[in-house]
């Protein structure tokens, strides 16, 4: 089946859609040069292709396209209540890219966006400007890789390095870059910054194989984690989202033991734990896209428009993982 797909589908980014306005940015040229065989199609606005009606994320995931655009209007957003702020005041997030090259069965992006195509905003300097404006008023904690995986795209867009450079200039700024990639080598020549956190989302290997299509294995992610720690980077581990299956308890126990047998707990900045949760509207769209997914067809409970496991199961999963993590790191380094 996989070889059939390889033969039928165009390569990733076989087509690059470029906003007329984006053509003037040097970043656009740099990205296009990396794909000499791709067809370049000029567009007026990224939404003309990104937000079309009746798209199939499932089909598009087999041959996603790249869209280069100029980000306008709101460039920085207040952090969402369902996201952990890690005790930081002034929690924000921004997306210099939208969508992800990975294909996780439970990913909320397939409910948030109507497409699997990836937008990269080439005017990252404007986003830096917007962050600097907020910094004039107070300190900022900003997550830069929520609605995408910046590090997974690093070889193409280089935004991880740009954010690291930016963090050097602003001591009142703290940046979190979250990833499932094993792409630390793409930024290994950068000097670690005190105010830059590399966060890895970790899952049991069987989950990675079955539900996190195209993502690196646990061993590969851990290899990146270990290298980052050894080079002096601040590293966060995210056991989030915890996903229920009949064997969840054993699988998470095995994973956490493996993680901390390879990475000393005291070397980790902090850890976050959270169960799968997603807005009711997103879940509805996710089910439409992946009608046969066991993970997202779990009969979730909806509370205040957010769907998750019922209170008892959620508590059980969080407590179990908390106790496992607690064996290796101080309790004040665990966020729930």
């Amino acid at each position, binding site marked *: 089946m996989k070889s*059939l797909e390889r033969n039928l589908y*165009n390569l990733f980014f076989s087509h690059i859609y470029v906003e007329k306005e984006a053509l003037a940015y040097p970043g656009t040229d740099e990205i296009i040069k990396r794909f000499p065989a791709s067809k370049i199609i000029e567009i007026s606005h990224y939404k003309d292709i990104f937000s079309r009606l009746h798209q*199939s994320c499932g089909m598009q995931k087999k*041959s996603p396209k790249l869209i280069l655009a100029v980000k306008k209007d709101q460039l920085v957003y207040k952090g969402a209540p369902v996201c952990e702020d890690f005790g930081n005041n002034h929690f924000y997030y921004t997306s210099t890219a939208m969508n992800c090259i990975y294909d996780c069965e439970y990913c909320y992006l397939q409910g948030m966006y109507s497409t699997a195509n990836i937008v990269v905003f080439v005017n990252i300097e404007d986003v830096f400007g917007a962050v600097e404006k907020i910094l004039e008023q107070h300190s900022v904690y900003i997550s830069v890789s929520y609605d995408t995986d910046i590090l997974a795209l690093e070889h193409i867009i280089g935004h991880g390095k740009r954010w690291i450079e930016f963090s050097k200039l602003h001591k009142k700024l703290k940046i979190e870059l979250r990833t499932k990639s094993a792409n630390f080598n793409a930024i290994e020549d950068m000097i670690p910054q005190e105010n830059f956190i590399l966060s890895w989302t970790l899952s049991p290997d069987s989950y990675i194989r079955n539900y996190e299509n195209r993502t690196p294995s646990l061993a590969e992610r851990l290899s990146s984690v270990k290298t980052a720690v050894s080079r002096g980077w601040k590293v966060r581990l995210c056991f989030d989202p915890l996903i229920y299956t009949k064997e969840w308890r054993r699988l998470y126990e095995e994973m956490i033991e493996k993680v901390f047998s390879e990475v000393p707990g005291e070397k980790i900045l902090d850890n976050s734990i959270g169960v799968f949760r997603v807005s009711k509207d997103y879940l509805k769209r996710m089910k439409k896209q992946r009608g046969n997914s066991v993970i997202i067809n779990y009969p979730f409970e909806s509370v205040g428009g957010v769907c998750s496991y019922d209170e008892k199961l959620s508590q059980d999963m969080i407590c179990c993982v908390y106790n496992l993590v607690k064996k290796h790191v101080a309790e004040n380094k665990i966020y729930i």
Partner: protein
Amino acid sequence: MIYICTALYCEAQPFIVHLNLKKELESYQFQIFKNKETVLIITGIGKVKAAVAVTYLLLRYPVSNRDILINVGVCGAQDRDFLVGTVYLCNKIIDRDTKKYYFPDMLLKHPFEENSIETCSFVVEEDEVDIEGKLVDMEAAGIYQAASMFLQTHQLFFLKIISDHLCIKALTAEKIISLVGDQVETILNWVNEIIPAFSCDKNVISKEEEKILKKVSEAIKLTAAMEVQLKQLLIYYKLQHGDFTNVVSRYIGIECKSKNEGKKYFEELRKKLI
């Protein structure tokens, strides 16, 4: 099902012959030709007629995610480097009247050239100055707009064969039959190659199983909301175990006297299914 739309009979003729399509005698507004796997409609010239025809076709033959729609026809090209007889798969459709853009997904490999097409409401002459599309036709934008109400963006294909360089005086029906006829085999071979990409079926619960769900719901007096919950539980169970009939069949014969009693049965079922 493969839906083919052409503006003219002469564009359709090679497909009718090659696929041995038979005329549907009950269709009065538009000429439709079909066999078991293919339905072809002749839309007439212009984007409005084309949109109406596609709507007519897709209402008459309801679509599923296994289907594809192909708009095949001849087109013009201003640039003389674009050779007559070359087939193009359109990756961008421009509506000349509204300046709106439409983009069919380009997910699948193909043996054709690719470019943009501009749909005009009138015949464009070769000295026309402000044409944005590399190719020019009179239907694609209308067909995209109508078809995308029924089908997803990856199910739509626009194949255009260059017939002229914006001078149609010498263009005859015979010439068009010949241009399309030269490509019909290539096009249909490609269609056969891509069809496996459209074979997924999304419905977890079959119609038979829906009936079982209904019977259980009636037997244990479920509310509409509880029936929705039960359906979700059955989907979840089926995805893990392949079949749920053994678990629920005993509830079909129950004579439940009150909603409260039904709630107890529902809770019992929920525990078994989760």
